[in-house]
């Protein structure tokens, strides 16, 4: 479903070129549960941004569902983000002046979906996450866990195939973090491809497939607890 081949992503910092991603080749099948771990600056966030079409690679190709998405225009990429990818952020990124309901409605609004249809989808997305009673609350009136659940509702309301989560529990207490992880895992069990970036070893190890980044390279790729050291450039 996700095919990255020889992806490079360079940043110009002063007169130095930083290789945030250095020849990454990676395949992720539909329905997989993948965690990406690694120290800061290892390129894991850059990888997630690339997967989410928020950033473009310097070279290499990215095929999503068989389609080369690296060469798409801004407008087409926006459409792909809207329809096929859901984001969950560490900072939740809810719009503070909008209610939970309105926040969840945003991607559907951007898709230009008719209002009645939107209302139904939003209501069912909030219900799935146990937020019916909170639908008219603004983010400031919600707890951290509730906010992240609203953010998940917003990420899933468009029924995307891929859910990208960047430190989804990073700003939550342990209990709420557990809840959020459970929700994400349930979504994965229902068929969504879940990719989580995290520092948290315990959380990372729950994933069936664990990727470890180091210095912009894919350092290791364990599947179901069986280590499989990568031979760089060979896979």
């Amino acid at each position, binding site marked *: 479903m996700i095919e990255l081949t020889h992806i490079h992503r360079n940043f110009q910092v002063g007169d130095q070129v930083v290789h945030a991603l250095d020849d990454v080749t990676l395949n992720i099948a539909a329905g997989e549960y993948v965690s990406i771990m690694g120290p800061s600056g290892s390129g894991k966030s850059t990888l997630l*941004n690339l997967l989410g079409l928020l950033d473009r690679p310097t070279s290499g190709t990215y095929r999503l569902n068989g389609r080369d998405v690296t060469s798409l225009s*801004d*407008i087409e990429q926006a459409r792909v*983000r809207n329809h096929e990818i859901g984001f969950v952020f*560490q*900072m939740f*990124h809810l719009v*503070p002046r909008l209610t939970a309901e309105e926040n969840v409605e945003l*991607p559907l*609004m951007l898709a230009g979906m008719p209002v009645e249809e939107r209302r139904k989808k939003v209501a069912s997305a909030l219900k799935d996450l146990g937020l019916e009673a909170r639908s008219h609350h603004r983010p400031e009136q919600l707890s951290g866990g509730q906010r992240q659940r609203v953010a998940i509702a917003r990420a899933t309301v468009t029924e995307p195939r891929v859910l990208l989560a960047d430190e989804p529990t990073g700003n939550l207490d342990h209990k709420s973090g557990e809840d959020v992880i459970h929700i994400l895992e349930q979504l994965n069990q229902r068929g969504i491809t879940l990719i989580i970036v995290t520092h948290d070893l315990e959380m990372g190890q729950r994933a069936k497939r664990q990727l470890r980044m180091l210095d912009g390279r894919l350092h290791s790729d364990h599947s179901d607890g069986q280590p499989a050291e990568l031979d760089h450039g060979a896979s």
Partner: protein
Amino acid sequence: MALHSADIARFSWGALRGYPTRTVLMLVAMAIGVSAVVVLTSLGEGARLYVMDKFASLGTNLIIVIPGRSETAGINPSTMMGETPRDLTLDDALALTRSYKVRRISPINVGSARVTHAGRARDTVILGTSAEMLAIRHWELAQGKFIPKMDLDRATSVAVIGKKIRDELFGAERAIGKWLRIGDRRFRVIGIMGSEGRSIGVDVQEIVMIPVASAQQLFNTSSVFRILVEAKTREAIEPVKQFIIDTLQKRHQGKKDVTVITQDAVLATFDRILGALTYAVGGIAAISLAVAGILIMNVMLVAVSQRTAEIGLLKALGASPRHIITLILAEAFLLSSLGAIAGYLLGQLGSWIIRYAFPVLPAYAPAWAVLISLLVAIVTGLLFSLMPARRAARLDPVQALSRR
């Protein structure tokens, strides 16, 4: 993926309400700009209408004949010859009645003399004129009669005096029928002029009017100062003007030595001057609109940087650059049109206050000024928001979202 316009409106409205201080400040800036245009143009327009009205009260279809030729080219043969222009006479005035297009004429003479009655004296303007003057100038008597209809060259000793003159010379005493002295001659008061006759230049309450022939004797002259001619219709003004020039040329041995002014020409000149003045103040006020536009740009820039995360998020959720530009411009449009409407109302209130304070001034903002100011407000609001909107659209979502 096209946004619904209802969604755009709702989202922008929400954004405006989300930052009330910013929104109110912007609205005030815009409103001041628009209201300045409305108030200043209404003031200019009011002044124009006021002056027009005053000129109209000089008389309708009025033509004024002045002795001497006013040439724009300073020197003409007559100046070289040392000739002085021939004076206008009462016969000239009579000759002008011989066109069916002329309704009435009135020669006038003006001078200054001492008016006395029972030991009280006052120096004042003496106007020698005829019975027709009352109708030509749309004056109304407060009391008594005006100078009677009679031959122009008959010098009778009657006088019509202004109210103020009466108050000063007669006090509470009845003036009609009493005698007073003007210079060394005695006149009988037959009428009093009230305040209705007030018009530019002369306050009829402060003058004394006597028959034109009497004034000629008083000032020891055989000429007249001006001849006022009233044409029957507006269309007749031009032919009458030509008739006057031809007639007087014939009577003056072929010399074109009079100047004929039509009231229309004077009106048109004033109309042009004051109209230009209105445009000018409107233009100055429009500068404040441009300032408001720049303010909008600044505030929208701040808004964009304030809402970096929000814009980044919208992008992550599938907003294309065009969506972002649409949303920011919609916000600016909403802001500037609300500001413009507030300014319009404020401006109308301002001109109402002017009208209330100065009832003589018909201070109504002309429609063109209102329309242009609203349009300029909205267009500048949009134009100056283009740059912030583009910047927002170019925003890098990665950076926008990673700011913590």
